[in-house]
């Protein structure tokens, strides 16, 4: 037995609880290891073959994207995809790469990488902005090509025997989904935070994950034994036998507890004085559906369809992809609603094919409902999928980032057009759905009374609403503590939206993180909110927390809170009031 490496304990942010025990597989550079590897003379032919295979695969992907986009609008986009595909048939381009593999006896990735650099050089020199854009497109194609070449090394990840803990500096969402569904039992990511997509995916798949550990990549080698505690944010390299046994025990107990957990009650939750509060589930991936049922959630309060897009990345989801997932969601929630939010994609979150140019400020740019309305041929697929799936249950369709009433009207019209199309094609569908909006832009809050007349429901997205209203980027550590859900401005907004909903007779729900915050709960109920959509895991404890609250008291507290000047004052006021209410003094 050789010398054993000393155990190293690292701390990061635990973003998905649970214990993972396995062997490390390290992916550097966003999952693409780009090294120049000299290859043997007799391996050259095989390397050229591998390159050609990756070319073919990439051409297929591009062709799939093309058909995904459809005929009419697709003409312009199709031409761009066409150019991409042609690049991979371009004798000069492809020939140069193959020659490099043969002459330099170097791995295909490196040959492609050099070709991409060459492309970059040639296009950078051009004045014409449009053509420079084309150059960037072509660089994208080489990246796709690289990814397909690397598909072999990812293939290796899933071929590694036993449980794999992935250690990477960053990982794209589609990879997180793919690997999480394969043999990866834990994620250790150098960058990222609680709200990054990978963290959300890890939570949805129930895979322990720790992020924000600087330098971890340098400390880990492939095959290193590793333990991940996603709840505490701890990562242990080369664990001692004792430690291993301790964590194995914890993991076993977690599993037993999960199995033992019975399905929670699914009748409506109530406050102590009998006011009904609907508790619904936020869902991102179908893996979460069994957990949702067990939690007693009364329907899906929010399904973020961007996750479907991430799953099929780099291809666009087909109409059938949409139809299949929505059918599952509706069937799992029936008879309760499934609220499906149309794509909230934009800027960084979307393939270059859909965007014409880089945006300086994508958060305030072409995103959400604006983007989907601006890309009718792509949006059409989602709408058709929704209408076809509507026969499977109680469908509520919701639009994100709505700021103008026109957006609601245009969405309604687009749905009507899609229904007419399906009619004329004789395809089964239903128009028995409700149409609502995310209220997350302050402008929408201010005209909530007017919007309420034209939609069937509201869902308040507190995460973005708070950021936009307080002008705070919660991911910016310098100002993160200014992100205050208790700020009286937020309370007043919530109150106004709740009232507007009540007056118009439409349901209003909350689906941001504030909904699961037990400290916010009293205020939410007190401000008149009666529907909360949260992670299924939070439902049992919210149910309990509600029983301890008295709606009448909360209304008084919430009302008084709206007259206080600062979030801190609100927080201490609420705390004091609740304590005295508990001890019977009020």
């Amino acid at each position, binding site marked *: 037995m050789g010398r054993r490496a000393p155990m190293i304990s690292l701390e990061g942010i635990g973003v998905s609880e649970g214990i993972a025990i396995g062997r490390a597989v390290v992916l550097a550079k966003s999952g693409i290891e780009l090294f120049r590897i000299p290859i043997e003379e007799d391996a050259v032919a095989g390397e050229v073959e591998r390159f050609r295979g990756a070319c073919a695969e990439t051409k297929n992907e591009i062709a799939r994207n093309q058909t995904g986009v459809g005929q009419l609008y697709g*003409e*312009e*986009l199709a*031409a*761009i995809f*066409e*150019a991409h595909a*042609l*690049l991979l*048939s*371009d*004798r*000069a*381009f492809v020939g140069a790469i193959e020659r490099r593999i043969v002459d330099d006896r170097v791995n295909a990735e490196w040959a492609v990488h050099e070709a991409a650099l060459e*492309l970059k050089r*040639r*296009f950078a020199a*051009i*004045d*014409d902005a*449009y*053509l420079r*854009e*084309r150059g960037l497109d*072509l660089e994208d194609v080489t990246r796709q090509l690289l990814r397909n070449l690397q598909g072999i090394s990812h293939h290796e990840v899933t071929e590694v025997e036993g449980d794999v803990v992935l250690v990477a500096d960053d990982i794209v969402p589609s990879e997180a989904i793919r690997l999480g569904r394969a043999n990866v039992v834990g994620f250790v990511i150098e960058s990222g935070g609680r709200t990054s997509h990978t963290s959300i995916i890890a939570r949805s798949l129930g895979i322990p994950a720790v992020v924000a550990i600087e330098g971890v990549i340098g400390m880990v080698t492939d095959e290193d034994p590793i333990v991940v505690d996603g709840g505490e944010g701890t990562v242990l390299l080369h664990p001692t036998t004792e430690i291993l046994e301790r964590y194995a025990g914890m993991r076993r107990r977690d599993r037993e507890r999960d199995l033992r957990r019975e399905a929670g009650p699914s009748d409506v939750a109530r406050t102590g004085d009998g006011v009904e509060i609907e508790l619904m589930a936020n869902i991102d991936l179908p893996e979460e559906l069994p957990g949702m049922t067990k939690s007693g959630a009364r329907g899906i309060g929010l399904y973020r369809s961007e996750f479907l897009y991430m799953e099929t990345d780099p291809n666009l989801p087909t109409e059938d992809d949409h139809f299949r997932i929505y059918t599952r969601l509706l069937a799992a929630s029936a008879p309760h609603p499934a609220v499906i939010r149309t794509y909230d994609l934009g800027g960084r979150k979307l393939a270059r094919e859909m965007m*014409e140019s880089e945006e300086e400020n994508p958060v305030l740019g072409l995103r959400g409902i604006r983007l989907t309305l601006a890309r009718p041929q792509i949006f059409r697929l989602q709408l058709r999928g929704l209408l076809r799936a509507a026969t499977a249950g109680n469908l509520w369709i919701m639009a994100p980032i709505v700021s103008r009433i026109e957006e609601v009207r245009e969405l309604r019209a687009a749905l009507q057009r899609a229904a007419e199309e399906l009619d004329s094609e004789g395809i089964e569908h239903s128009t028995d759905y409700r149409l609502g909006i995310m209220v997350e832009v302050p402008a929408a809050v201010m005209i909530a009374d007017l919007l309420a007349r034209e939609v069937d429901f509201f869902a308040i997205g507190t995460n973005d609403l708070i950021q936009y209203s307080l002008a705070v980027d919660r991911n910016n550590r310098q100002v993160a503590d200014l992100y205050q859900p208790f700020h009286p401005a937020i309370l007043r907004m919530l109150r106004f939206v709740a009232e507007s909903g009540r007056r118009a007779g439409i349901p209003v729900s909350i689906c941001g993180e504030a909904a699961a915050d037990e400290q916010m709960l009293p205020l939410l109920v007190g401000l008149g909110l009666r529907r909360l959509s949260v992670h299924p895991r939070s439902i049992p404890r919210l149910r309990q927390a509600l029983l301890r609250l008295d709606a009448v008291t909360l209304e008084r507290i919430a009302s008084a809170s709206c007259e206080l000047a600062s979030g801190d004052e609100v927080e201490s006021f609420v705390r004091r009031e609740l304590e005295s209410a508990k001890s019977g003094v009020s």
Partner: protein
Amino acid sequence: MVNRLGLHARAAAKLVHLTSGFQSEVTLITGEGEEIDAKSILGILLLAAGQGTALTLRCAGADEADAQRAVVALFADCFGEGE
């Protein structure tokens, strides 16, 4: 909405599709004497940078006459873009 992006890419793709169907070598020569393989999408996209330059067409091969006719027709028709 006529998208300038689509126009150039579409025209380039059309040309490459056309020329690739012929056996002959098809070459475009700029006023500066630069030679571009008309079967190469890269070459054509980069060529578009110099729009407005007079181009010479050279076809060499078994079907060179057909190739010449077809390419000239495509250019004359403004690539079917009507502009």
